[in-house]
């Protein structure tokens, strides 16, 4: 069985509105890095939110590592899914330092293990010198690295990234894309990355899923 199994998932924002995601099925193996491309309103971010447990599908099921996350009867809360997410605007807690942000998801570890993991993460994203800074004291690229470190720190089974490069300028974007590919490979992570920029996906991902604008009329296509 596949590592991530999405089976005939349908989602709409309100009962009488058309489905944003209609009967979508998708399988991913462990270590896959899949890019999701599609126009605005095609449901790219919604798909990530459904996997993370931030939205509830109307029908269909989602399993990760043979564990049922959601179907018509079951709904597992986001905190129990073991899924990490990097948000479009990074969502770094403004009242916490870089170190506190990264350590936020490490509450289940003992203190010395927590500090050890924090150091590893700071090293991974090369932010050791900034651990006492607050998010507003960082550049866009630095914030993106911290958000990535925070999501990776609890060693999630799946990493979801929602337009992680959209707030970066072109030069920085190119550097960060290459860095990200290396970091993900080093972490051996199963990852879904949403972007509207094909170059982002080409650089970082091994598989591409194209979501049609109108999911009822077109068929989704997958490139490898």
């Amino acid at each position, binding site marked *: 069985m596949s590592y991530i199994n999405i089976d005939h998932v349908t989602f709409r924002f309100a009962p009488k509105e058309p489905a944003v995601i209609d009967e979508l099925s998708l399988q991913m193996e462990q270590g896959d890095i899949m890019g999701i491309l599609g126009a605005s309103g095609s449901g790219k971010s919604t798909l990530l939110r459904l996997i993370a447990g931030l939205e*509830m599908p109307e029908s269909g099921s989602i399993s990760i590592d043979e564990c049922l996350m959601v179907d018509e009867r079951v709904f597992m*809360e*986001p*905190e129990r899914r073991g899924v990490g997410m990097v948000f479009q605007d990074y969502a770094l*807690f403004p*009242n916490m330092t870089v170190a506190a942000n990264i350590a936020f*998801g490490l509450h289940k570890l003992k203190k010395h293990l927590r500090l050890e993991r924090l150091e590893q993460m700071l090293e991974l994203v090369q932010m050791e010198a900034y651990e006492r800074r607050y998010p507003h004291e960082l550049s866009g690229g630095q914030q993106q690295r911290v958000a990535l470190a925070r999501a990776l720190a609890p060693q999630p089974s799946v990493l979801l990234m929602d337009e992680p490069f959209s707030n970066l300028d072109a030069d920085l974007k190119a550097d960060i894309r290459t860095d990200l590919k290396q970091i993900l490979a080093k972490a051996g992570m199963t990852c879904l990355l949403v972007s509207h920029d094909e170059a982002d996906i080409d650089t970082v991902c091994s598989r591409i899923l194209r979501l049609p604008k109108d999911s009822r009329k077109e068929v989704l296509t997958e490139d490898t």
Partner: protein
Amino acid sequence: MRIALLLRNLKRHVNGWTVTSMTGAAVILLPILYLLLSLFLPPNDNWSTVKQFLLTDYVLGSARLVVMTTFFAVCIGVAFAWLVVGYTFPLRNVFKWALALPLAMPPYIAAYTYSMMTGYTGIIQATLRNRFGIVLPPGIIEVMSERGAVFVLTLFLFPYVFMITRAFLERQSASYIENARLLGHRPLSVFIRVVLPLARPAIMAGGMLVVFEVLSDYGVANYFGVQTISTAIFQTWFGMYDMASAMRLAAWLMIGVISLFILEHWLRRNRRYSDTTSQTHPLKPKALKGAAAWVACMSCGLLLLLAFLAPFIQLIAWSVQYGAKIWRSDFAELALNTLQGAGIATALILLVALLSSRAVRMIDSPFMQALARLISAGYSVPGAIIAIGVLAVFTVLDGWLSPLYGSLGLGEGSLVLSLSLAMLLTGYVIRYMATGYSALESGYEKIPRAYSEASRTLGRSSLVTFIRVELPLLKGSLLSGFVLTFVEIIKELPLTLLLRPFNYDTLSTRAYQYATDERVFEAALPSLLLVLIGLVTVLFILNPERRSI
């Protein structure tokens, strides 16, 4: 399958947050619904007397007071808002915020201060007589009448219209007004043909606040002997000891309030109240020169003098002059009662508001939005209506709990809840929930949802997310919610008069008691304290504005 889906969704959404919100909404709505139900019960004998001889006078009294006060408050509020937004003149920046200060003075305090100041021995007539030898004909400037009630209510409520209209004109009107000026319209024509139609939604919003405040008023109307439905509720309750008729009157007043709500929504139907563009810029005021500038400055100064400075200075003078005589041994107890009652009620309000605003945030559905509106509905319901509703519900509760009281040795049939402070606190919570709720709702609007979602995906539960992520970011909103609610409760009069336990006085009830006993000098010190506390709210609201001026 549908049932399974429904159960899944229900299981996710029914939690401590939603249950608390629904309980809060039920507590707030129960007294009001209970009152409305009283309309379906057969009326008693008293009611036919009230209906035959008094009801028409009460309704007409309320209607006259509402119509006249709202008319004058809107005229003054809009004219002065346009003056400070559209023109520059000496001290304009001071008047821009200072004309909001009358909101710090509860109108009932202004009522007895003015009645004393304008009386035969008051400062105005005495100065004219002693210094200038002018003796005014009796009654010419005295305010103890319906005319006086309109005068006081207008002066101390016009800032609602002034503030909302001023903010609207500053933000939204620039390009339209500049265009009208470029097209050759004279100032009066710009005001009538552009400013008034543009500002209609703001004027209406401010006007509605005045309407609700006048309907809620008890202190001014009662002091000046004007018959209104609010004063009638008090008379039927305390004068006739007729709870059923008081409930019926309150229910009719409630129907009036609901009708006003519906009327306001109907008037606003299909109207665009927003700009056609998001690119707005502040209006560049026109400079007034020479006599015009000084007339503008003097008009604002005179309004500020009448609506704040004169009664405020008079209260200070009385407090200084008679301070030693009026300082009483129970003053500390009075202050403690006031702070304690307001403190407990504010804490309860913020707790329910915090839990409810979070529930609405978590489940962004039409049902939860409606719940949020219901929770805030108490603010537009006059205090007397809430008081009667709460008393009625507490009396029923006492009836139900009677066997329990018996078994506890309190005596069956005794009134425990309805003679306790809990009843007054419940009244405060219902009336002022909106103040706390709106502060926290706007606080939540400033926190991106992604913060909470990030916390959940990092393995933190909903509760931990609330405590570790949301609560620290809500500190400012909690503080402003606390200050605004606390001060409003301290100033509250009709609800406190109706629901307080025996021998329980607050600064506002004691000040009012002294004033109605013709001991206005003794009322000065507690009144001054209340005005100073009121100033905290007004300055708190104005603070960001003043910094930007």
